């Protein structure tokens, strides 16, 4: 992966951020996320009437003796969140100005890991291209951010993107359900539907971060060009004019909007991350506006 900088500015932007509580519904073990849930817990919130299906063991008998009506105690339930960061390290991520798509992807991964580690959640990080690389699993505590950075730095950049294979490998190796953050340009020929559907079937929550650069939008293309796919080496020749570029951008925009709509329809999250944007701004504004962080 290329050199990237995750500095004080990014850290400040992530300092007070935590993952929204509804993300933690997928959590399994006790942790720092407080979820409004009936039953046992550490902090009392309220009473509510007993309804069929509630555990009778949760009825507050003291209240029942006084009111002659069954009431259930509602307490603040604390849970832990497992955040898995899968970063695209294929060759197509090397493009981009002023920062490469891979650099922005790494900075976003570090930011999301930092937010998770800061709130006591578990973090798993890994990179993928044609397949999933080694994972840094079950990291806890802010000190573990170094391991994430080291993993991203040490990962090679190259090869083709096979998101489906990477997701399948991740599902086989993951032991905890939680939030899976896919950071990629999502321009692979196989599409994004099947990998996301597999994650949802495995009861993961999904955040799709699509990193695109101006070159992806056809900027600077003009005249007779032989376009070469950076991953497959496939070539085609075009006479690029305004009409062609406009049509190409329309198709790419439809692709990005399709990914966004696909995630939203399934209650998942999508973030468009252009390389011209700062990482801190994307995390602090983009993800907060979408309700992923608060």
């Amino acid at each position, binding site marked *: 992966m290329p050199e990237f900088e995750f500095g004080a500015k990014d850290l400040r932007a992530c300092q007070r951020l935590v993952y929204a509580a509804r993300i933690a519904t997928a959590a399994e073990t006790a942790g720092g996320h407080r979820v409004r849930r009936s039953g046992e817990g550490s902090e009392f919130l309220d009473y509510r009437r007993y309804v069929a299906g509630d555990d009778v063991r949760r009825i507050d008998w003291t209240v029942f003796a006084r009111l002659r009506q069954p009431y259930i105690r509602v307490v603040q339930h604390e849970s832990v969140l497992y955040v898995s960061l899968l970063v695209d390290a294929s060759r*197509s*991520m090397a*493009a981009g100005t002023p920062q490469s*798509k891979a650099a922005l992807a790494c900075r976003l991964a570090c930011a999301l890991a930092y937010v998770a580690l800061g709130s006591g959640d578990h973090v798993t990080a890994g990179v993928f291209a044609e397949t999933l690389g080694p994972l840094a699993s079950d990291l806890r505590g802010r000190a573990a951010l170094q391991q994430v950075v080291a993993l991203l730095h040490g990962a090679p950049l190259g090869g083709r993107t096979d998101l489906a294979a990477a997701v399948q490998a991740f599902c086989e190796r993951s032991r905890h359900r939680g939030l899976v953050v896919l950071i990629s*340009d999502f*321009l*692979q*020929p196989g599409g994004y539907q099947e990998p996301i559907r597999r994650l949802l079937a495995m009861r993961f929550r999904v955040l799709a971060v699509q990193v695109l*650069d101006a*070159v*992806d939008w056809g900027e600077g*293309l003009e*005249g*007779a*060009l*032989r*376009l*070469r*796919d*950076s*991953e*497959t080496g*496939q*070539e*085609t*020749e*075009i*006479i690029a004019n305004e*009409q*062609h570029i406009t*049509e*190409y951008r329309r*198709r*790419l925009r439809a*692709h990005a909007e399709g990914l966004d709509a696909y995630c939203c329809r399934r209650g998942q999250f999508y973030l468009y991350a252009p390389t011209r944007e700062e990482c801190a701004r994307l995390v602090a504004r983009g993800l907060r506006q979408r309700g992923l962080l608060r």
Partner: protein
Amino acid sequence: MNMLVPSALWWLLAAVPVVALFFLRRRFRVHEVPALVFWLQTERQARFGQFGRRLRRWLSLLVELLIVLALVAALTEPARPGTGRELTLVLDDSATMQTVEAGGRTRFALAKDVVLDRLNHAPSGAAVTLVLAGRPPKLLVSGETRPERVRAALLSSRPREVNPQFDRAIALAERRRSTRSTPLIVVSDDVEDPARSAPGVEWLGIGQRHPNVGIAAIAAAEGAPGLDIILYQSGCTGVTAVLTISSGERQLAQTSVSLQQGPTVAHLGADLAPGQPFKVQLGPPDAFTLDNTAYGMWPSPATARIDLVTNGNLFLTAALEQPDAELRTLTWPQWQPEATRIAVLDHPPPGLRLNRHGRFLVIGGTDPFGLLGNEPGREDLTPSQWRPDHPVLRDVDLLQWHVTRTAGFGSPPAAQVLVRAGEVPLIFSVLDRDDPTDPQCGFAAVFVNFDFSDSDVVLRAAFPVFLWNTVEWLIGRRPEDDQIASGTGTPLSFGARYSRPERVTAPSGCEVSAYLDEGRLTLPFPEEAGFYTAGASPHQAIRAVNYVPDGRVTGVAEPQSSIVAHTSWALFDWPYWLLLVAGAGMLLLVELVLFQSRVVRLD
């Protein structure tokens, strides 16, 4: 397969830039993109696979190279080897072919017999090409295989009153032949020039050597009324010729001349009126009668009718009094403008107003036409710029002129300044004619921006020259009008006043084309002797021409007889430039169709 023009193979080098341009145009700039998936999502891209695209690319080059090859093949004029079934002849139809030979037949008729004899002995189905060698050469038939058509074309031809042009005629015939190795036949009465002996060309001589006497030129006699006739005799001595001049049906004069070898000048006294056409006959007739008759026209210069309006300028009166001028000297109260006369206005008084119609020379004073602007008078001027090519200033030396004070005329925009001193116009002309071909219509004036009393012009030798140049320019008379118009060769030139090409009627009544050359109508190829008429209006003149050859003795060499028959066919009979344009057009079409359709179109 032979190539008539093997040097055209050099055009194969044109394939080099074609190939270079092909690769240059197709040198796509490589651009790496993260994914091609959306570029490839087109119907055309899906339809044509990689192999198809590659094939179309090289097909473009292949077709372009084939076009270049076809073009070069056409330029080389490939032809089959001779099969003994072609007859190529060049027939001299120049003026000397009208010479009457013993037996009373002309050389051209004898030449026709020779050609017909060759036609009769040619193999059946032979392709005949026949070129007439006069100026300019004419292709009578080309590759004709039907003998009746060749005979009809040959019998309809007649000698033209022009000189032969063998080199172009042979070149024209060569282009119709299949190979250079077989000779072509030239039938002519002029085969003596060894410079014409080119390889592959055989000459057939017609006729016998004859002495000849002809009229070479006609000029107006000096010192006595009449004509000086220049005769030329060759091939004989001691001949007495009779010269007769007539006009219409009336004989005007006759004289006898004893001729010597070479040129002889004979005087023929006759009192000819201006513009009168005449015919000069030389007798007795010899074998070549064409140069025994000449036609001409006596010059008819326009008479200058001048009104000099002055308060007693004797210099002007003396300069304008000429024998061929009709001069009236008037004072200002006596003068009434007449459109048919030229008015020389010496110092017009203030308040005089004249219509802008007629011809005027205005010398100083005030502007009587209200045409000129008022400028302050300038003093002590000498001419600094002038137009020496203008007829008004012909043979006028302006270097010594000095003007003490100008009249203050300002030249209008339509004026042509003839003489200026710095920025001050000294002499300028205004021409506003209704009919550009008629000098007597409309308005023409020459303004002299000073009084002669305020200059030393009248003391200069150029003063009367300037005055008469101005008068003649206002009349519309030219120096050549004083000369006899008599054609003595080609081209025929009309000393008439025309501003555009006209149709001219030949002596036979046919209309021929003329072009304008330095103010004169010129017939490129007058082929008939006699009077040529241009137009019918009073302002258009009739002139005459007579073809007179150069007096050369016509002679023949020993006849040679051999006919080499061959046949040929050309792939293309187009001019070279048309072939090149067609080839370039096809290349462009291939570029547009194959190259442009090969690229990815996203729509």
